[in-house]
């Protein structure tokens, strides 16, 4: 009580400065009433984020946000994508405290939550700066630009053993079988939701997808449940080639690990985007708005690019950002749109049908 009164006095003493300070904080180009959002957000004091981006990668982003808006702390919780989904639906059902912002690489699950009425509608002032495919109904926003890569072991694969495209992958799998047998890895689509999403996107983009599946089956694939375990195996040489791995993860590891090589497929390159939305039942909606806007802003995206997550904005330079990729791949980069199209395979029958078809193709190749 006492303390708040003293703060009040201090504020009153500098009353002349206050409007200036607040105005200075409203980012350029934002509506004037954004000052109110900032003021209310400061009263909320924190924003709770559930995220699949690991803390180490998000650290720079969080620190910069807190520097921009002192007094608002970020309660950042990293967990896997299933966990983000599970926690949110069960906490909402129990009316228990939950996240203000959900940020996940499981694009389909995020859209499902938003589509089921979990997201707050918010016309972020940054909407115009990100591509249209990354915005769903002013509710869910793609926040990163992450090409999906082929990853290989540099010590063990050279020259024409390194596939350059999806079609080339089928060729390498067929012609270099003696070297690759039992050493090719990708997601186990039954254990990984992201792996499932990527392979179904492949099945739409790649006209010879089922040939690839068959060739993969013949190579005796090693299915893993996460990109990290795949990369660990590729690095050690237990496996030598992997596909459908986030280039962002691979690039991060390649920095420290000279064994990791990365290829962005030349025929088409899937690009995924971590989807962010504000919970409709957020306890700190204003702080959540600040966080969302910040992440999409040029300043936030520069941090994202620096952390190797891939900026989605055209005005942030970098090799693995939207700007960089469009230079190298042009329209062969195929972003997965943030849209309800992603919900199709969450239908149980359709999903199991695809899994069955995939398993059969893998077995058929053997």
């Amino acid at each position, binding site marked *: 009580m006492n303390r708040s009164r003293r703060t009040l006095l201090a504020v009153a003493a500098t009353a002349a400065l206050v409007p200036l300070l607040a105005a200075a904080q409203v980012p350029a180009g934002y509506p004037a009433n954004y000052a109110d959002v900032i003021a209310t957000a400061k009263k909320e004091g924190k924003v709770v984020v559930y995220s699949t981006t690991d803390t180490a990668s998000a650290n720079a982003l969080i620190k910069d946000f807190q520097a921009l808006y002192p007094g608002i702390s970020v309660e950042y919780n990293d967990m896997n994508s299933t966990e983000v989904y599970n926690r949110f639906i069960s906490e909402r*059902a129990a009316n228990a405290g939950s996240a203000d912002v959900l940020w996940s690489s499981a694009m389909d699950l995020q859209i499902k939550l938003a589509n089921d009425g979990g997201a707050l509608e918010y016309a972020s002032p940054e909407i115009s700066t990100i591509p249209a495919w990354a915005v769903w109904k002013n509710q869910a926003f793609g926040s990163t630009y992450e090409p999906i890569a082929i990853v290989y072991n540099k010590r063990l694969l050279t020259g024409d053993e390194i596939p350059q495209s999806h079609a080339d992958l089928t060729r390498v799998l067929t012609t270099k079988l003696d070297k690759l047998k039992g050493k090719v890895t990708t997601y186990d689509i039954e254990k990984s939701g992201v792996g499932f999403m990527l392979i179904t996107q492949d099945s739409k983009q790649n006209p010879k997808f089922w040939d690839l599946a068959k060739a993969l089956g013949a190579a005796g694939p090693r299915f893993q449940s996460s990109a990290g375990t795949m990369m660990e195996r590729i690095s050690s040489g237990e496996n030598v080639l992997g596909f459908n791995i986030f280039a962002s993860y691979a690039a991060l590891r390649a920095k420290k690990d000279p064994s990791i090589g990365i290829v962005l497929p030349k025929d088409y390159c899937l690009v995924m985007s971590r989807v962010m939305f504000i919970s409709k039942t957020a306890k700190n909606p204003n702080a959540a708005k600040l966080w969302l806007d910040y992440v999409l802003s040029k300043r936030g995206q520069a941090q994202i690019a620096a952390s190797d997550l891939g900026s989605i904005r055209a005005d942030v330079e970098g090799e693995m950002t939207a700007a960089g990729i469009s230079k190298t791949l042009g329209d062969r980069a195929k972003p997965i749109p943030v849209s309800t199209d992603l919900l199709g395979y969450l239908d149980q029958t359709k999903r199991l049908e695809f899994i069955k078809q995939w398993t059969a193709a893998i077995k058929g190749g053997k």
Partner: protein
Amino acid sequence: MTRTSPARIGVIGLTALAVFLPLGLIVYQSLLNAPFFMPHAPGVGAFAFIFADSDFWDAFQNSLVIAASMSLIAVPLGGILAFLMVRTDLPGRRWIEPVLLIPVFVSPMVLAFGYVVSAGPVGFYSVWAKQLVGGVPWNVYSLTGIAIIAGLTHVPHVYLYSSAALKSLGSDVEEAARMTGSSPFRVARDVSLPMVAPSLLFSGVLVFFLGFEIFGLPLVLGDPEGHLVLATYLYKLTNKLGTPSYHLMAAVAVCIVAVTFPLVILQRYLLKNAGKYVTVKGKAGRQRPLPLGNWRWIAAALLGLWLFLTVIVPISGIALRAFVSNWGEGVTLADVWTLDHFREVFAQPTLLRGILNTVLIGVIGGALAVACYTAIGLATHRKNDGWSRFVDYLVLVPRAIPGLLAGLAFLWVFLFFPPLAPLRTTIASIWIAYTVVWLAYGMRLVSSSLLQVGPELEEAARTAGAPRGRVSRDVTLPLIRYGLLASWLLVFMIFEREYSTGVYLLGPGTEVIGSLLVSLWGSGGADMVAALSLINVVLVAVGLAVALRFGVNLHD
């Protein structure tokens, strides 16, 4: 018969609530067609789904094969080991004993990861083997590989029970056999081991049971070739349908319980009989170690080989991985040596909190758990009525539920049972789950201490007019304080090791090393997994060292 006191009813009631609330939720959930907190309808669709899924039957079959081969491997080896350690003049028995128990207290996740790094297709030892013999003669990812590793790591369980039984028997019969010219092997086979047959049978059932629930080893080792067991099948169902299918997971859990609960009851029956057998036959007389003669080298080699395969291979693998940035065929270890993983662990608040929480849950949580177990123990101590028999069976129930799903059920309890809701995001939630999951283990520790108190001491106090509470406080508890201290240490180590129960409870504030390992393994932070594993092993080792320092009898 005195009136049942309110305190006693309170303790028993709370225990029953803690056991039946999560179990009830699991059974209820298995009979719905969607998560119970979403729109749902009752039905047996979940069972129909898993029974129609060929993966379920594969997993079921693999679980049976693994459990059976574990018993087949662990029982003979454990029996022989017990004979060697208890009965013979094997050199270095004193220091070998604590090493023998390492696999019991090290998390299977850690062991499994260690095997990948050291004995996987390009592991450290595999590369050496390749240089020596031109190929890797083993495959730790095969079903056989997993079963052998699981069998070897469960040898200590058999050892614990059969050595305890052997110690309570006099060695005169064996000496007689040895004097008439039998080889030590023959003595073990024809005299010693048959005498402890009930204990061997009991531990065989125990190992089979543990094998049926095994999770960490197949989670890590079963992935590359796609071998599923029931617990990993259950885990896989989290994602198979895209959105979590709690009803299917609960149905699998009910199936597991349907197999494990009868096994638990069978164990209880066997343990009772084993005790009877020993008291009838055993005359704990003078025990003289049997001279092994030339056999000692064979025995030492056998023991050494087992130790090498079960302790040294995985632990050295994990230790090496914790200090290198990458590894594999063609990598010179000197070039990749690093301390970065530990720096990273200590720079991440989540992981740091996890380490701190793990210590707290072991030290303080362990003590509180022993206090609870003691309260339950005292509530049934020297009272042979219906309540006591009820508690006897009650404490066995949580053992039958796989830790993974027990943790999930507790998450539901914390979410939807308002009085407990504030605890959800605190380490107390993990503590409650651990305490209930390890109820049977803890109760055995505490009640074996209680049984050592002579009834006449308590009766004397009663005769002098002390009420029950006073007898417990001033007579029974002081007498068992060393037993309780030992229980605390053993519970500490078990809590440090536990990994599956916390998986679904993992969140900000409830991080413990065990569940962080599962989560990091899933998200692929192999560097962090190795560093955290090593820290976990060190914590357990400290516990073990303290236990030995205080002369705690690890043979309960």
